């Protein structure tokens, strides 16, 4: 397993554009800390974002995993191109001839995806922990380590998304087209949602059905955290609006994404096995 990871590491780390993208991704992950620096001090209006409760435990787990999940697009480019480049350089053929089995080839890519997700999760965990320790109003251990399921959801979300990118890379064989396909798929899911909502079911059933589509399932793993914020809720109370939402991470949501992940990896393998190179 380490051998496969090492092989993939050599391929990625010696590629300058991959290296730059990976580094900037992790810099961006860390840069969420910069949010803490947002501070307005215009005469009577004093606003310091960090003081608004976004860095309170355990809310910070929810907030940070939600925001940093957007940066995954950077790594998506890396993953799609690491797959597609194998085809355009025909190195996949040489790898197989040199004695890598097709299973090992897919496994090496999947292990890379898992490592990326794990390292990202660890990064977000560390950055959030530090930010929280500095700014949080509550510092009891039991509060700090509650709601950790958001980190699990974050990991699963990244892994599912990257597995999807991997599959697209193999399916389309060209990085630009694969990324285009990804966007097209997002539009497609939106279109399906619109059609179902319009012609077939009410809002709730539509949401339920859409929960089974890959990108939507990943999106729903971590719900938006903004309406949960104390400040936002007090504003809502004043204007007589009440948010009654379920922000939790649900087991079945994780299962759906895990199922998609394994399907994508299986399809990638089946595709590679079937194709002549």
């Amino acid at each position, binding site marked *: 397993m380490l051998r496969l990871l090492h092989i993939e590491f050599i*391929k990625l780390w010696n590629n300058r554009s991959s290296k730059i993208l990976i580094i900037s991704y992790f810099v961006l992950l860390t840069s969420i800390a910069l949010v803490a620096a947002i501070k307005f001090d215009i005469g009577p209006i004093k606003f310091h974002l960090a003081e608004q409760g976004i860095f309170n435990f355990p809310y910070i787990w929810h907030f940070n995993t939600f925001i940093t999940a957007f940066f995954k697009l950077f790594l998506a480019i890396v993953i799609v191109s690491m797959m597609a480049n194998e085809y355009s350089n025909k190195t996949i053929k040489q790898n*197989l001839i040199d004695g890598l*089995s097709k299973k090992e080839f897919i496994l090496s890519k999947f292990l890379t995806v898992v490592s990326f997700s794990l390292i990202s999760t660890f990064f977000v965990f560390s950055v959030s922990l530090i930010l929280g320790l500095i700014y949080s109003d509550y510092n009891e251990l039991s509060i700090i380590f509650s709601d950790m399921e958001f980190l699990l959801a974050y990991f699963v979300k990244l892994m599912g998304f990257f597995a999807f990118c991997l599959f697209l890379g193999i399916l389309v064989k060209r990085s630009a087209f694969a990324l285009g396909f990804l966007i097209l798929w997002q539009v497609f899911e939106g279109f399906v949602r619109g059609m179902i909502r319009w012609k077939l079911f009410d809002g709730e059933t539509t949401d339920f059905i859409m929960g089974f589509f890959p990108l939507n399932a990943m999106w729903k793993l971590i719900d938006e955290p903004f309406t949960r914020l104390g400040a936002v809720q007090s504003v809502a109370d004043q204007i007589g609006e009440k948010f009654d939402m379920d922000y939790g991470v649900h087991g079945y949501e994780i299962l759906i994404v895990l199922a998609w992940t394994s399907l994508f990896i299986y399809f990638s393998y089946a595709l590679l096995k079937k194709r002549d190179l």
Partner: protein
Amino acid sequence: MSTILTVSNLTKKFGYLTAVKDLSFTIEKGNVYGILGPNGSGKSTTLGIVLNVVNRTSGDFSWFDGNMSTHEALKKVGAIIERPNFYPYMTAIQNLRLVCKIKEVPEDKIEEKLELVGLLNRKNSKFRTYSLGMKQRLAIASALLNDPEILILDEPTNGLDPQGIHQIREIIKKVASQGTTILLASHLLDEVEKVCSHVVILRKGQKLYAGRVDDMMASHGFFELQTTHTEALLQFLKNNNGFSKVTQENGLITAFLNKEMDAEVLNRSLMEAGIVLSHLVKRKASLEEQFLTLTNSQAN
């Protein structure tokens, strides 16, 4: 003698096209094999199948008496198919290190093999800066990293200049002299004739011949003759039962033997008949001529 590769009744269809048809042959240790055939005769497809990159339609193949899985066996094989495929953004050394990792062999042979193909002074240049000849040589170095039991080369001199072709052939000869089994696919017959001891000849995916190169050329050869008495000479050859076929081209008469005959004997009897030659050469048929005869006779 141990068997390295056994191919039995291998068939590959691409849609309606049958690229390889019911092909069987074996590769024994220690010989230099050539797979010969015109473009599109199924050479590369056959190699692709045994190298695990093309799926077979039917039939079977086994490496090293079938004692290990194909990808394990491939770690003991060195192969280059058509174009050298490496990561363009990596240097020669980095690329070879990667190959070592895949083949699970130590990295200490890298310098030695680069030396062998004459690329040691360019070892830290990126692959994309290499010329085609250098890329091909790097591919050979990479294929030799594991000191393979068999070296498989598919059109190794394709697209190279004469100097590059010469370099590659020298390397092949050097490797062969060290006792490595070699399987060389090519449509260049003189190439095969120069380095191979055995041949498999393919046409349209079918095997026409498999065996020693010498056995294939076991004809009695032919004479090339020239004279001012062309008519008389043609008459003489026609009446002599030692010749199977006589052709005339640009005043040069070619007479094919159907039994052994010395040039001296022919010359003497022609002199006695009053025919004086200005040109007399006795030759063995080259592989090229044999190949053309073989492929043509099967075509009709």
